[in-house]
Every structure is written in C-alpha cells, then in structure tokens.
C-alpha cells in the first residue's frame, strides 16, 4: 500500500497518514540520473548565410549591377566598408581593444543602414582576407561581423572571398 492510515498511534481518533515515499524517491533518483546524463548545457544556435560566387547551377547567378552594394572586407589590421557605384569606403583599424573597433564597426553599419541606399534592404557582402599565418583572420572574426550585421538589420549575408566582392577597397 502507498499509505498506511492510522498507523501513527494508538488513539481511536488518530487520522495521521504515513505516505510511503520510497517509490517516489526511487522514481526521482532514476529521473534525475537520466536527465543529468542527457542534459545539454551549451546553447548552440545558428547564423545563416548565402555563399556567393560560382554555383553548381549557373542559372542562379544574377547580375545586379544597378544597385549600390555594401561590401565588408575583414583584414588582419583593418575592417573595410565599401559601397559599390558611389565608391565610398571606410577603414576601421583593428588596433587596441576588440570591443572598441567592433563597436565602431557596428555604429558605422547602423549609420549605413539608416541611409537612403540600404534603409529598405537587408543584403550585404562579407569577405575575410587572410594571407599568411602571421596576418590570419579567424573564423570568430567572420562570425562577429555577421552577428553585428544581423543585429543592425542586414540579415541577408553573402559570404565570399576578396575577389568575389562587388566593391573592393582601394588604397
């Protein structure tokens, strides 16, 4: 029986109930062990993007030269923001605290998003230029740039290499 009624004393009017909690503890122990083993502690998410460049299906390549395209190039020492057709470019030096230069990048991108060319658009091109091991750009830098671009409203991110960018920085 799960409960023993009136087992607590000798009085006639004793209404104390002793619950048998052993099966409950057994179940709890098994459940705790199972849940601890299957628990996922790291929250994994995704960042989606559309690769740019040569495709398997040539019909998917679109020529869209009429509109201004915002290209971002991440280098070891600079982050470039270049607009095609109008030829405007901005370099953000990657020196000092990463939070500062990524903050500047975010502010610049937000300003561009508010501008006439991109206010109703969400597409952006992104490339990372890594030449040698000493001047390497890491995957985390690409993800950070994508994360910032998404946060300011550029959700449609196209990843390519430097040569695939519509607008490249000129020194």
């Amino acid at each position, binding site marked *: 029986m799960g409960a023993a009624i009136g087992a607590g004393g000798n009085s006639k009017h004793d209404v104390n109930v002793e619950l048998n909690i052993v099966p409950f503890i057994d179940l709890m122990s098994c459940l705790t062990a199972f849940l601890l083993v299957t628990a996922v502690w790291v929250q994994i998410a995704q960042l989606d993007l559309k690769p740019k*460049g040569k495709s398997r299906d040539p019909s998917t390549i679109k020529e869209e030269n009429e509109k201004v395209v915002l290209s971002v190039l991440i280098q070891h020492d600079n982050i470039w923001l270049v607009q095609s057709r109008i030829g405007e470019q901005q370099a953000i030096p990657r020196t000092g605290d990463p939070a500062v230069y990524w903050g500047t990048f975010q502010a610049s991108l937000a300003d561009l998003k508010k501008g006439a060319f991109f206010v109703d658009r969400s597409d952006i091109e992104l490339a990372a230029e890594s030449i040698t091991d000493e001047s390497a750009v890491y995957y985390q830098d690409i993800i950070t740039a994508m994360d910032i671009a998404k946060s300011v409203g550029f959700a449609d991110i196209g990843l390519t290499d430097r040569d695939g960018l519509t607008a490249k920085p000129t020194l």
Partner: protein
Amino acid sequence: MPIKAAGPRLYRSIKFEHLAQSHGHGKASNISLNLTPFVDMMTILVTFLLMVFSASGEILRAHQGLELPLANQKAALQRAPIILVTETTVAVLIQDEGSAMPIMKDVAAVQSLLDNPPPTLKIDSLHEILKATYDQIHNNIAAEKGITKDELAACKREAEGLPPVTKSGGTVLCPDGLAVVQADKKTDARIISMVVNTARQAGFEKLLFAIKYSAEGAQ
C-alpha cells in the same frame, strides 16, 4: 606489511546514540532519517532538468580541437549534413540511409590545405562527397522521403519564392541545398572560404554556421 587489528566501527567504537531514538527500550537501534529536505532538493533538481531537457536530441557532437565561436544569436540549429573543421582536419558528417548513426568521413588536413591551397578554392575530395550527398537529399525531397511536414512546407514556400515560416523554435528551411558548418573559432578564414566555395559548387546554397550562444556575443 604487518597485519593490523581492524579499526573502529560505527556503533561499536564510535557511538551514535543520539541518532538512535530509543522509546524506552534499551536495545532499540531504529534510526528515523528526515527525508523531507532530500525530497525537496530532488524535486527542484528534477524540475530544473526537465525544463532544460531537449527532446529533439543533439544535432552537433563535441569534437577534440573544436571550439565553436560565440555570437548573440538564438535561432535553433536545423538538422542537415555537417561540414566539420577542427584545428587539424576537415571532415563531413553525413546521415547514411543504411545506418542509424551519422558517418564521419575525413576529407583533408587543414595544414596541407594552407600550404598548398587549391587554385579555384575547391577542395576536390569534399566536393565529391558533398555532391553525392546533395543529389541524395534532392532526390529524397522530390520523392517526399525522409522529410518532415514542416520541411516539406518550407520547400513548397521556397519554390514559390515565399520567405520561410518562423516558428517558436526558429526558422524552418527546406533541407534541399542546406548544410551546417561546424568550425573551430580559430580556423583560418582561407579554410572557411574553401569550404564555403566548395559547398556552393556542390549545390549547397544555404549554409548554417553553428555558434555558441553568448548574451554578450564575441565582444
């Protein structure tokens, strides 16, 4: 080593008389443990674990030499073929039809790709596997085989040129041409370019980059 006499024993050498609540009988040794705090703690623990429990299972597996990058994004990861890039190797994790578990196929060594980069940024061995996988998935979708209702609906919307439907768990994308890139955060951008370029040439037009959620992002 000399044999020593056995050490002290509970209730013999170490007295715990205060635990044994005798009710008038001198030899009573029943101990009534207070289980209430234990049950309380178990209940709280079980409730917490049930809240964090994921019934859908893990899509990604932990690998040595692979630490995911941080980002402030919460969109749930979708099941798709996985391109793995660790500190040393590039591999592909594919769900084979004849096997219950995904199969991992090593493709190339990272250092050899950096030393001798392919001129067209296409990793041939990776392209071969991805192309075969793409064809298999594409045919399955055409036959409506091995695909959920939501994914099928997403494919129909995609064919009509409509944006994907966003649900509470995130956006459901059509698995046709969808792949997941699970790369170490310190991977050189050249390797990422090669992987992305190869995937696109194999037909994977939609890539999902696996990240580790952080409220502060990478900054």
